[in-house]
């Protein structure tokens, strides 16, 4: 079992309120990702679940039992730290068996359980080594192994991959996803990396300024963001947003038209419109809204064009799969949004439809 319930969880340091009432239900066996920009409260929330930070408001329940003041070791959670936090003077086996030793489990049983966890993570040959003799990826495995050995009902990961290089990060991402599938244990995973969030999570909880901006399945959040913050946070390059211009503008009109094509389009007049870069197309000059290429980034499989539209401050991003390589700075093009792809937001940033 490993159901985690947050009811109005809050945290304040003196007069500073950093978590402002989080309500969230993490189902047993779910892979939940907490994501958000720096300082949004995702790590603090995780540490409150772990018991490393006190909870100043609300209730935290694990498997239906209030655990607000329960000792970290008694909550049935295990944490993997960003820095790995391996004990430098203990071997890998001693590191992994430390919690069992603290629980008074005998050496033989410890060795058996550590050995089994090491097999799962394929680090059996590392058991006699010390942390400083391991590479970053190996240390990460040991840290995960230390968590597995405790047989927790909830795994807590605090940005576990951010100290690894890019290639290793991709490998570990896949490995962690597989580990979740094998163990079937609830995992709560904090990251600031939206690729990790999108690829690993059953559901994503997006944090913004100490509150939950939106909770949902990754693609739901991508296609149906609750507000401009979520729309802007997910997706790279960022979504293109324009405010309702005071004067009549061709681009606004074009996007408004596309937005009206959405089957779910509401009645209210939007005050902001957004189009993701992959839904903006290059069209022959004259047929779309005229724009000037300011910079073109050719990535091989696609090109990212940064274009300027006369009368609107800021640049627009286009992700173009075709015609890559033919656009240079200064080229005049036309741009047009895909039908039914435009998101509309009200004055407070909430999505209209």
């Amino acid at each position: 079992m490993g159901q985690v319930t947050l009811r109005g969880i809050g945290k304040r340091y003196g007069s500073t309120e950093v978590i402002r009432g989080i309500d969230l239900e993490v189902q047993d066996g779910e892979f939940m990702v907490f994501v958000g920009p720096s300082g949004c409260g995702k790590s603090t929330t995780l540490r409150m679940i772990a018991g490393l930070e006190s909870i100043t408001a609300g209730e935290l329940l694990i498997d239906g039992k209030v655990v607000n003041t329960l000792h970290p070791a008694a909550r049935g959670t295990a944490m993997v730290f960003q820095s790995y936090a391996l004990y430098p003077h203990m071997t890998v086996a001693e590191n992994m068996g430390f919690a069992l030793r603290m629980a008074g489990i005998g050496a033989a049983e410890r060795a058996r359980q550590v050995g089994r966890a090491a097999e799962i993570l394929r680090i059996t040959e590392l058991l006699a080594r010390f942390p400083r003799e391991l590479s970053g990826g190996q240390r990460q495995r040991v840290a995960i192994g230390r968590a597995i050995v405790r047989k927790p009902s909830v795994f807590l990961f605090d940005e576990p991959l951010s100290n690894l290089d890019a290639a290793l990060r991709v490998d570990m991402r896949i490995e962690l996803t597989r580990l979740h599938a094998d163990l079937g244990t609830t995992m709560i995973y904090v990251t600031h990396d939206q690729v990790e969030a999108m690829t690993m999570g059953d559901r994503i909880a997006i944090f913004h300024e100490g509150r939950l901006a939106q909770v949902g399945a990754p693609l739901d959040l991508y296609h149906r963001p609750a507000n401009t913050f979520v729309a802007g946070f997910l997706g790279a390059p960022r979504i293109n947003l324009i405010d309702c211009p005071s004067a009549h503008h061709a681009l606004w009109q074009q996007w408004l038209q596309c937005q009206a094509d959405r089957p779910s389009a509401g009645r209210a007049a939007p005050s902001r419109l957004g189009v993701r870069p992959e839904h903006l197309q290059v069209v022959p000059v004259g047929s779309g809204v005229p724009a000037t290429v300011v910079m073109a980034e050719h990535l091989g499989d696609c090109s990212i064009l940064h274009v300027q539209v006369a009368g609107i401050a800021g640049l627009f991003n286009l992700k173009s799969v075709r015609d890559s390589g033919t656009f240079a700075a200064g080229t005049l093009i036309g741009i047009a949004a895909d039908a039914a792809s435009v998101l509309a937001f009200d004055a407070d940033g909430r999505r209209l439809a």
Partner: protein
Amino acid sequence: MRQTAAALLQALARRDLAAASRILTDVLPVRLSPATVPYVLISPFVLLFLVFSLFPLVFSLYLAFHVWEPTDGLAAMTYVGIDNFRFALGDDWFWKSLGNTVWMALASGVPQHLVAIPLACFLNSGLGRGRDLAVGVFFLPYITSTVAIAILFSSLFSTDYGLINLALAHLHGIPLLGTLLPAQPVDWMGRPENIKPAISLIVFWRYLGFNVVLYLAALQTIPGDLYEAARMDGAGWFRQFWFITLPSLRPMLFFAVTLSVIGGLQLFEEPFILTGGKGGSDQAGMSTAIYLYRTAFDFNDFGAASAMSWLLFFLVAGLTYATNRAFRPRAGSQ
């Protein structure tokens, strides 16, 4: 002059020895080739080292195998082989001084570390802003002149007027506790059985702050998330101290204990001043360093004193090696 020095430093910073040699040739009476410049520049240190460090070292080894009457000049040396060592090893006072030294080194050294580590942990976690002030207070005795400390403690330990005996007299009036304490004023510096404890207390007090600073520095390098991981693993404060703090302090423990071993075995100033340079009644406060000083300058036997100093050196070296074996970190963990 200052401009010349600045120009010289700049030339050296560029590793331009040719320019440095031109600048030096202008101010020195001799011409220097670029290749000799480095040697000229390090010569002040080398000369001082040769005269005040290396020469005494070699000369004392030479002396250890000779009998010498210094007032008759260098010609009055007679080679005696290992007689000086044989004399030292057969000398009751030498063994007594070694016993005193080890006694005081243990009695002042062991508590230093047993108190300094918990104290450093407390200062590290418990005090917040007052920490720097507290560290400064503990460190103060270390930078105070030994003579001043000795005078202060002579007054504190005074039999008739000392604060320590005054306090004991007051405590004696308390029921139960009072019966454990002496009824008469204690003759701290006069009676042989009291001298070593009194000196050890002073040495302990003097070097405690130094050790606290060492351990505090080491404590501040232990990552906080190790303690968080240990908390998640179910370790309470004592087991966090035992399994995280102490092993993490091990390199510093090795360093600090080594300093205590070396310093304790070379103990000289405190007992020398407190016992008037003689070692106290029944030589109870005579450390080996005091005895070999007396052998040389009171008894005029420089050869035997040199032999003793080399014997003391071998003891220090041996114990430092033993300390290394006992406290060095596990292979691979550092």
